[in-house]
């Protein structure tokens, strides 16, 4: 008979090991899933997890898909650390993309190197502003930020549709709800030839470093961790919870908005209703898989990007439905949450009971 016994303090080794174990467990569960779908499980796993690493173009696509995930998860992990649950990153992503597109289209055919920074600023502000709504409603009216930020995703989706079928619609587009294709100075430069890897990837990497330093050394990072670990101790330390709520929601909103800008100005090149593909939700998994740590998020974003690129491969190569990848990602988060217990507990053999 085995039972769980509390460790005197959290195990650092397990903190590092659980994400790896979770990926391994998910591979096993995934194999079972593919077998249940009537696909060869090993072939499916090879296409999803190995092939993206072998082919140079696929490797570059990892950067393209991984960047928005990392960027959004970076911001989310800040809030999750503080116990502030922004789960509306998808909406902030959409608003950032829409605002950046509005700027791009307002200066259509105006050349200038200032245009991309201006679009980035618009994306940051729109994302932060959209996240400011749940922040203000939480500190002023005590409204649950989970529900408000999530509701705002649906509002943002409708807003995007209203924009692309109204003010931002391509005048020559036969009434299709799409914007015009951005002109060159509104498109992010590609930094690796013959790929879609754009300048946003570099910015993302720099932001990872900035956030890592912030969480590790800065008093704000300390305050955020304190508030999440022990809210009353944070109050004793002089942390103002309302400030942390606003800062962490707006920071994550801003990064999600920036990711939206990178997406429209990078791979997409125009605003379309199909732009949001759930990065804002997948980033929640990335944040957790990365243990809410900026460097961890970077690694986790890479793993998740593999499932995106490989998932597409499996879709075309084996006819594995796209939804299977969503299930796969859900199982990854489940595995991680389940294995997490070994950070604070260990399995021990229970002594035989003397009294019946």
């Amino acid at each position, binding site marked *: 008979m085995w039972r769980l*016994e509390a460790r*005197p*303090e*959290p195990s650092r080794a397990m903190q590092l090991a659980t994400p790896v174990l979770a990926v391994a467990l998910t591979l096993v569960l995934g194999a079972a899933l593919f077998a249940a779908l009537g696909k060869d499980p090993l072939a499916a796993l090879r296409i999803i997890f190995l092939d993206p690493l072998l082919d140079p173009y696929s490797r570059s696509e990892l950067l393209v898909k991984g960047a928005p995930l990392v960027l959004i998860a970076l911001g989310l992990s800040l809030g999750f650390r503080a116990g502030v649950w922004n789960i509306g990153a998808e909406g902030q992503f959409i608003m950032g993309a829409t605002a950046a597109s509005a700027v791009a289209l307002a200066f259509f055919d105006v050349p200038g190197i200032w245009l991309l920074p201006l679009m980035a600023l618009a994306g940051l502000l729109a994302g932060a502003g959209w996240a400011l709504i749940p922040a203000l409603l939480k500190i002023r009216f005590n409204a649950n930020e989970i529900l408000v930020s999530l509701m705002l995703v649906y509002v943002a989706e409708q807003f995007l549709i209203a924009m692309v079928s109204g003010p931002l619609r391509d005048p020559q587009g036969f009434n299709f709800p799409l914007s015009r294709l951005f002109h060159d100075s509104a498109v992010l430069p590609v930094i690796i030839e013959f790929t879609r890897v754009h300048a946003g990837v570099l910015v993302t990497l720099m932001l990872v470093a900035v956030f890592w330093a912030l969480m590790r*050394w*800065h*008093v*704000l990072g*300390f305050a955020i*961790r*304190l508030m999440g*670990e*022990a809210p*009353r*101790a*944070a*109050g*004793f*330390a*002089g942390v*103002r919870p309302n400030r942390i709520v606003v800062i962490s929601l707006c920071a994550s909103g801003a990064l999600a908005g920036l990711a939206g800008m990178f997406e429209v100005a990078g791979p997409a090149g125009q605003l379309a209703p199909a732009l949001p593909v759930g990065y804002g939700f997948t980033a929640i998994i990335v944040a957790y898989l990365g243990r809410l740590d900026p460097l961890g998020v970077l690694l986790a974003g890479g793993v998740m990007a593999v499932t995106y690129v490989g998932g597409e491969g499996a879709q075309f190569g084996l006819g594995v439905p796209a939804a299977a990848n969503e299930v796969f990602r859900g199982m990854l988060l489940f595995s991680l949450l389940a294995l997490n217990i070994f950070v604070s507990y260990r399995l021990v053999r229970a*002594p035989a*009971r*003397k*009294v*019946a």
Partner: protein
Amino acid sequence: MSFLSLSGLTKRYPGVVANDAVDLTIAPGEIHALLGENGAGKSTLVKTIYGLVRPDAGAMQLEGAAYAPSGPAAARAAGIAMVFQHFSLFEALSVAENIALGMPQGRTGTALSDRIRQVSETYGLPLNPDRLVGTLSAGERQRVEIIRCLLQSPRLLIMDEPTSVLTPGEVDLLFATLRKLAADGVAILYISHKLDEIRALCDRATILRAGKVVAVCDPRKETARSLAELMIGAVLAAPARAQKMQSDTLLEVAGLSLPASGAFGTALREIGFSLAAGEILGIGGVAGNGQEELLAALSGERRTRADAVRLRGRPVGALGPNARRALGICAAPEERLGHAAAPEMSLTENAALSAITREALAPAGFIRWGAAADFAARVVRAFDVRTPGVSHAARALSGGNLQKFVIGREVLQRPDLLVVNQPSWGVDAAAATAIRTALVELAAQGTGVIAISQDLDELMEISHRFAAMVAGRLTAPRPTAGLTIDQIGLMMGGADVAA
């Protein structure tokens, strides 16, 4: 003929033997004291009797038959009832609902309410069945627990530190109830570390030290001193009280009021007092009368009118904790894990928690973790904190060691004013003495100290003046020298009137 007998009960936890071959017998109608320091194994032993803990070895007998309860329900069915130290009550439920939950099966509604009234009258425990428990005072809550037990007509009643939440008047009432029960043939197992109470109430005492029975005696034939030495195993030196206090006023509190923070919190009302440099002011009172709120208002965790709190004439009431720390106010809240310290964080991080400002650990906003670790190590050395290193999590420390760390962290910052709540709660006698000595020495160097505690002996020992908190108000402080227990009782006893 004993009612319950334990033989060789042993319970091990990782790293500690909580009970080591404990023997104990209780006869019907006997009031039996279980005496020991915090951590001596009293709670584990009674939890075993009550079916909450399974022993690793040993056996229990109830009226001669083998007794091994599978859980509290089985214990209750066998006639054993328990009143917990930390009440197992539900604040948002009514008195009657709370009592119904402790009963074997569905007796509800008016029949139960009538029974409650009947029992509460018989044993002198006034209570209204329809009130929400969250609105009751600590003494009233204990009555709910006791009535819940009595309704099951128990033959053994276990009381875990029952007087820690009571005023002296309420203690007398409780003792009268317990004597009446014993006269009716109920066996009572009375857990405490308060020697005078045990000598006044109990017929026999079993003394535990480090999980082992060290003595069984008749407490009425022992002195408080001999009992204490049995309990502690060493002779203790009391800290010398700081003799001199300076005359210049350090802190002035006037018209300090604060609304209650939660649904069941306590509001502070018109608190006023002053404190001299080098003075120790002891604040007593039953828990939950606003002590926590007072500490928050002084530390800056809760802000008030600027001039409600003045430090050397300067209004500080509207400042936050770090601004007040910069001016010299440090504090140590009661709850160690979760309030004074973050459980999962390292001692280094916990040192930074309150010391960033005064120890200049983060110039330009970036924390110098090396300096923070040095400060943590200084606290560990100066206060003899037993830990393998400052990189370990706070919750890995024992309660006493963490308390020494928390107090040491504030003392080493050399504050001008130190506010501490329950400085030695739940720590062993040696640590308690060390903490009290540190407070006295700090005051001797000119720091004003406000010590909030429910341990009256502690306050009498170290403080120059004494005041009591009652329902969010503070009585006028009086010099401790010459203060009698009756006078203290009167100061604390406003509770029933105001509640």
